[in-house]
């Protein structure tokens, strides 16, 4: 699944570790989501959306 996580993180000048800590997941999980190797669970997708104050579908694209 395509997503804009890396772009959103870059806009805030956050490292992967910073974003991982804010989401309470491992840095490896953030990396795997950014590279499309792992799709987050629904609760994590909601946490991501809340953190960036966006809707889930504005961050994740299931048609990509």
């Amino acid at each position: 699944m395509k997503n804009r996580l890396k772009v959103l993180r870059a806009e805030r000048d956050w490292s992967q570790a910073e974003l991982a800590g804010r989401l309470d997941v491992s840095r490896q999980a953030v990396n795997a989501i950014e590279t499309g190797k792992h799709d987050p669970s629904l609760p994590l997708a909601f946490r991501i959306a809340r953190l960036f104050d966006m809707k889930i579908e504005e961050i994740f694209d299931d048609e990509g």
Partner: protein
Amino acid sequence: MTKDDRLNTAAAGPGEERTRRRLRTQWLYLGLAGAIGGVIGLSTSLFDLGDGNLFAGNWAALKLPPAVALVLAVMLLAGFLVLPLYGFRMIDDYKREHNLVGFTGGCLAVLSGFPVWAVLHAGGFVPAPQAFGVYALGFVGMFGSFLFARWRL
């Protein structure tokens, strides 16, 4: 410095501290697991009254004083049951997925490995199945599946 490097080192904040705390907990967990394993190994070698070894083919020759055996049983339960279950609750979805693949691999290795071993023995190809061998099948299957999930999935 590449753009990716910059992204991975920029803006230390509260999230970085939480990530460092998570890593520290992970190392503590691994240290505790290693310490438990070390104490079990040391105790079995120090107190063994026979010629056995817990993690080798001659485990049946292991003879321990009853009190030591009880303490070791508790430590084995802590090391192989309580600690992994605790760890499983602490990790995130991504790592849980790898662990589930690992557990599945270990389970399937035993489910398929034992009957295959038994029929090969019946055909005269291999020695009879033995407990440690079946245990090792599960362990190797689990570890191999985990590594596959970690680096290939």
